[in-house]
């Protein structure tokens, strides 16, 4: 029991990034690499937040515009934008974000439940929130932003 | 140095089982897939004991044993026949071809090793 608790409280590392003025993060364990923006090949009949697919060393990688996905204005990607290549289960996805800001270390018990807010996107895509200095950082639920599941919902 | 045993069997399953049982008992195993192949491997590998199946394509076990016995340096190497038949006629034929003894399939690995110890120094 005690061992389980200590495991649950073990610190995890998160990669934080900015979308507009808000901060988000994902578990570093699911991040495979971070790369610069390259133009994507558009997919017919895809939801707007799916920017298309790019070639990641032979793998067809779908690119999600995370801002659009979370209900913000769609991103106008430039050379400075980055793609976070993340994996959950067997699915690999590229997340288009403005910039990666930091890697933070956070014990599991410091992750708080998502406050009850009106935004449907926030409820669906945010797993929990954490406080660092004067910022609030939302932990992205990677599975929910994945296009395979998203497409079914669409 | 561990004893080198040649197994001659067209069935992969049997070859694998023999290999598992024999290597487990510390023997070195070389394999052949039929009688013809068996004679080739015999000459190349110089095993100290041979275990052969009877029913095989190209050359059956009887032909293989006769062939082996015609090679001078294999005239007295122990050759065990591996067979499902409990048929005495088959055993007799194998013996007249020059087989040292026999093992009836399905074999128990422990007993297999016992039989090998019985015919090999």
């Amino acid at each position, binding site marked *: 029991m005690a061992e389980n608790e200590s495991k649950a409280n073990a610190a995890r590392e998160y990669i934080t990034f900015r979308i507009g003025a808000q901060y988000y993060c994902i578990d570093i364990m699911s991040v495979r690499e971070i790369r610069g923006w390259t133009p994507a090949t558009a997919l017919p009949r895809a939801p707007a937040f799916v920017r298309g697919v790019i070639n990641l060393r032979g*793998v067809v990688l779908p690119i999600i515009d995370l801002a659009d996905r979370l209900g913000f204005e769609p991103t106008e990607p430039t050379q400075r934008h980055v793609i976070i290549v993340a994996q959950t289960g067997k699915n690999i996805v590229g997340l288009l974000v403005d910039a990666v800001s930091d890697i933070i270390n956070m014990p599991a018990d410091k992750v708080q439940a998502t406050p009850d807010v009106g935004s449907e996107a926030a409820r669906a895509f945010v797993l929990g929130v954490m406080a660092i200095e004067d910022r609030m950082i939302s932990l992205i639920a990677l599975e929910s932003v994945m296009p395979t599941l998203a497409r079914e919902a669409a | 140095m561990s004893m080198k045993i040649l197994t001659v069997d067209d069935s992969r399953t049997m070859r694998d089982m023999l290999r598992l049982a024999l290597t487990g008992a510390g023997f070195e195993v070389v394999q052949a897939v039929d009688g013809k192949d068996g004679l080739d491997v015999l000459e190349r590998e110089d095993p100290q004991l041979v275990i052969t199946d009877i029913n095989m394509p190209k050359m059956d076990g009887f032909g293989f044993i006769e062939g082996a016995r015609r090679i001078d340096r294999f005239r007295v190497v122990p050759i065990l026949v591996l067979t499902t038949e409990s048929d005495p006629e088959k055993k007799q034929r194998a013996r007249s071809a020059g087989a040292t003894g026999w093992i*009836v399939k399905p074999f128990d690995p422990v007993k297999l090793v016992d039989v090998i110890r019985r015919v090999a120094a």
Partner: protein
Amino acid sequence: MDPMQAIKDTFFQECEEQLGELETGLQAMEDGTADDETVNAVFRAVHSIKGGAGAFKLDRLVKFAHVFETTLDRIRNGQLQPAVPVMKSMLRAADVLADLVTFSRDGGALDDSRSNEVIAELSAHCEAKPAAQEEPAEEPDGNPFAALGWEPVAVSLEPVLNQYEIVFKPKPELYAKGNETTRLMRELARLGSLTVHCETADVPLLANLEPEQSYLSWRATLLSEQDLAAVQAVFEFVDGDCHLDIEAVESAAETAPEPETKAAIEEPKAVAEELRAAAPALREAAKAEAAGTANAAQNTIRVDLDRVDRLINLVGELVINQAMLTQRVLEAGAVKNASIATGLDDLEHLTREIQESVMAIRAQPVRPLFQRMARIVREVADATGKNVRLKTEGEGAEVDRTVIERLADPLTHMIRNAVDHGLERPEARTAAGKPAQGEVRLSAAHKSGRVVIEIADDGRGIDRPRVKSIAIKKGLIAPDAQLTDTEIDNLLFLPGFSTAETVSAISGRGVGMDVVKRSIQALGGRISITSRPGLGSTFSMSLPLTLAVLDGMVVKVADQTLVVPLNSILETMKPKGGEVYGLGPDSQVIGIRGGFTPLIDVGYELGFRSHRSDPMTGVTLLIETEGGVRSALMVDAIQDQRQVVIKSLEANYGHVEGIAAATILGDGRIALILDTDAIVNASCGRGTPSEMLLAG
């Protein structure tokens, strides 16, 4: 993995191969094309299955295989003639054996009555009792030692020592079979305490000594807890090759083991060594190594499929990289340098060759698939009371393993159909002046980079008036529709069409030809039908040899690069003014050689642009979909024609309507491969499938 489990897996793989051999062999025996070796091979197949099954204690499989094998042995020995009824039973037995293998592997229960019925049949042919009762020793469930030919020896708690007097004189044959006195004595010594005396009186002077003769004899006294049988068992292998006398002496003396036992055993060994030394020929021969004559024992290796697929993927990357490199060099203008240009050409050839060689690893002959169909034919023929003969051709044609795997279900369905619906009953055939036995022909052949598989029957052919009336009744076509014969035949592929008025137990299963067609299309194949009334029908499938690459035309549509599979393109053309006509508010057709073909704006259909583009500014690709429907696809420009490596879009994203897969082009960017049929369907989505059909 547990090594025994790995061997078990091997066993089941091997069973599949053996069952294939069995099927082929039995077919040959039935056709009368079998020779002695065929019968031997058939026997060996069953024998091997039995052998392995015994090792894994698959009792029912062993029991059945044993009866089967016994019958085959009779045929092999000429005691039983492979007449028609016998062959019928054999084929049935092969089916039961295959089922038993499947059940042994996957679990589940076989209907006992079926196997018992076949056992009874086989036994009746052999005029013998069921063999399983004859040889209880082979029942794996019995005494485990019995399998090895030994009986376990009872050991009493209070050891009673038995005394045995053994006189043993080997004959030369004993040595000729590789047995040795020393080993026998050592075996005896293991049973208890042994005193051995070697009689050397008969050994002649060296000059008279015959190296192949046997001159020595032994007298031994054994004190052992073991019974007589155990002592006799030591000499099991030399029975007949020696004079042996074992006498159990009453009331054994409670004497301690003789200290000289070891020496006593070593002594004859020393003599034997001397004897060998006296036979120089033997020694010399042992040293004369006939080295270097051996050739490779096996010319095949087994490779994990994952490794092959990894290699194929890597080669795919290589192809893409090579294309990218070429493009970069071209862009850099370095190609003016002749040696660079030649180098690039060589690299391209080499890459192509590597790719083809790697693809060939995954290729397998269609033979096992065809072999399975023989059984389907038999079963359906039995169930429908039809007399059918399956003729197969081109079983050696090789296709990608995945294609073969995914072909099994559609092929099974078509074979069932051919026998159940295609062929007439024997009486009807005779009445029609045809032989009572119907024929189903299954063939495979390579044709221009694809494999064509045909299923032909010599039955009644498609009853077109009936097909048409059913289609009308089901609302698939208008009552007054004028259809050509081909169009009527193609109605069979429409979803919801089923010719059998009562769904038959054999072809029924709720699967129609539309499902077959979809499975074939999913493989990148196409299927067509031809039929002649009273003469039969032929289903012809054309399939890609591999699922990994595709020949395609690279086109531009609304700034996007797309690849159109070359096999669906009939011709390309540039529309001229006055050839395109509007049809209704939302459709256009193009006039080609006096006919009108629907014109599909690919960019518009895929949503790449919101308005249709002007047909005069683009290029049209005349395509034919699987049902023989023609459409004209409109694209902006044609760029290139090339082989592309197919990449799954589904792995990380999902299926996209109108798109078959993705690929990576020379510039490293992803291009989508068009699913032409889906595009055509989507553009007609507002209509019924039959309208689409009639549009052709």
